[in-house]
């Protein structure tokens, strides 16, 4: 599976960009982040801790490039620093706890939205101009325009508070102990419904729109006409000939959307008090816990890059033309 060198170059550049931003930002505002963090530590501010903070954020008399090297060295050993709010836990520890929940939420939402959105788009294009298309397609465009924050609040209010159908916070019932049992999984599932339903509309709208456009294009191609000329059933033509080819731009779109999905997940977690990376980021930013905020950016960037890479690989699997280096 040959991923073009170009793509890898882009990912490397993005990663470097995030690292550089993380490195330079606190140094551009000398004093105040460091001071505020030291103040935050309060009585726990041992001289060692203060030194560590100063070193990490540049309030030292070391040449910049040496500081950068130290920083890179730290990254290589997964040393993202120590949290200020949850001192003495390291940033890695703080993030590791929440990363799992966010991953669960995002993966579930993406898979759900992909299935629903793509199906709706394919049917809308196949029955173009019909009642289904006339209703679903403009609705999808609207879904894209309404921000996740609004949907989250509306969902929380309607289904959580007013109708009381779903629990209004947390990843699972706090009275339960996590374990491999049905009750626990059931609770997790139940608590995940509203957050997933909040993340999904935007993605469903995007997938539906992209799939419909792509499918309309594909339906005009000669190989689809040949599929019909072969006397194949409508289902066979729609799936194997049309939808399969139409999926390719959708996959590219998926890769582009991943950054936005993480953004949406942050807001969703905050509204639903879901213990993922978003909530951690929020509490960290309120507490000015800069090490955690920075670590978060790096982690999310890496996650997005990783997901992009995954989509690139999948695309190569689906479209044989790419493997040879041509598209």
């Amino acid at each position, binding site marked *: 599976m040959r991923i073009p060198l170009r793509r890898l170059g882009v990912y490397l550049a993005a990663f470097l960009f995030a690292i550089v931003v993380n490195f330079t930002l606190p140094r551009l505002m000398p004093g105040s982040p460091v001071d505020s963090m030291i103040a935050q530590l309060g009585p726990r501010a041992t001289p060692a801790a203060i030194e560590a903070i100063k070193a990490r954020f540049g309030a030292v008399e070391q040449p910049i490039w040496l500081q950068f090297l130290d920083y890179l060295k730290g990254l290589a050993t997964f040393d993202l620093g120590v949290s200020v709010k949850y001192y003495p836990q390291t940033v890695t520890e703080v993030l590791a706890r929440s990363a799992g929940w966010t991953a669960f939420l995002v993966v579930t939402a993406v898979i759900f939205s992909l299935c629903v959105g793509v199906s709706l788009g394919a049917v809308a294009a196949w029955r173009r*101009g019909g009642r289904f298309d006339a209703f679903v397609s403009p609705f999808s*465009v609207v879904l894209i325009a309404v921000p996740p*924050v609004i949907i989250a609040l509306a969902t929380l209010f309607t289904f959580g508070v007013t109708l009381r159908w779903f629990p209004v916070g947390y990843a699972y019932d706090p009275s339960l102990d996590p374990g491999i049992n049905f009750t626990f999984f059931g609770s997790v599932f139940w608590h995940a419904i509203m957050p997933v339903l909040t993340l999904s509309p935007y993605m469903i709208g995007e997938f539906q729109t992209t799939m419909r*456009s792509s499918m309309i294009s594909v339906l005009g191609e000669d190989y689809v006409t040949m599929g019909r000329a072969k006397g194949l059933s409508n289902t066979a033509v729609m799936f194997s000939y049309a939808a399969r080819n139409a999926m390719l731009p959708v996959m590219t779109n998926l890769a582009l959307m991943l*950054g*936005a999905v993480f953004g949406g997940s942050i807001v969703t977690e905050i509204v639903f008090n879901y213990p993922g990376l978003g909530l951690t980021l929020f509490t960290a930013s309120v507490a000015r816990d800069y090490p955690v*905020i920075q670590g978060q*950016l790096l982690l999310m960037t890496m996650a*997005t890059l990783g997901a992009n890479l995954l989509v690139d690989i999948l695309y190569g699997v689906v479209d044989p033309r790419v493997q040879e280096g041509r598209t």
Partner: protein
Amino acid sequence: MSSGLKLFLRQKKAVAGFIIIVALCLMALLAPVLAPGDPAQRVGRSHQPPTAEHVFGTTKMGRDVYAQFVWGARPSLAVGFATGLAITAIGTAIGLIAGYFGGRTDAVLDLTTNAVLVIPNIPLLILLASFAGTVGPMAIMAIIALTSWPWGARMTRAQTLSLKNREFIVAARMVGEPWWRIIFVEILPNLVPLIGINLVGSIIYAIVAQTTLEYLGFGDPLNVTWGTMLYNAQNSSAIIVGAWWDIGAPALGIAIVGLGLALLNFTFDEIANPQLRSGPALSRWLRLNRLRARELRAVR
């Protein structure tokens, strides 16, 4: 150009979207008339539901939600539109330059575009905003604009590349037209539908990003915007106590703006992509086809 306008007006969705946006802008402009006085003034008891006197109810601090809604529209819309414009301008410029000049310029710009594109926006925004402290609309605008231009740049670059190889451009270059003339007179007019999509999409994004940042508390809480209204409502536990109007008004405002812009975008999309256009002839063909298929099935 006039055929484009005619096409635009024939699309009911576009007209509807346009009316919505214009109505909201008018409301914002006429704020002093529609809700005279200072929206931050305390006018009633805390968290009162909508009544005849206070159409949208009151906030926890006893402020009139309706007044805040009308006045809050100003910065929300203004910053949203301005930021959207900035994003589009930056993205179009970069995409054009990369696409037209090619070579090393293109390689560098393309790499930068894709790299910034991959980085998740909201965490980056939160990072920048938390280092910057509570910031006014200008800073928010700058932060958002500097991180969201890549999407438009990519589209513009792709389109420029395909235009560059079209015969009329090749002819213009052979005749010796200067590059700035080619770009502004030959290429740019062909990019207008794309720029339209870009602009509307960027405005939508800008409003969402701005609202999100303000909701998270990075805006200036003393400034009355729809985002800060959400922030204040959240902090006063409006949802939990059931004060739906407190959250509902700004949420509705944002949803309506989104709706209007989305309707506009749908049409721009069809203008730019003629295949998607369902002109009256195509609609008629599709309808006749459906009817015939139904007839033939029945004859069986």
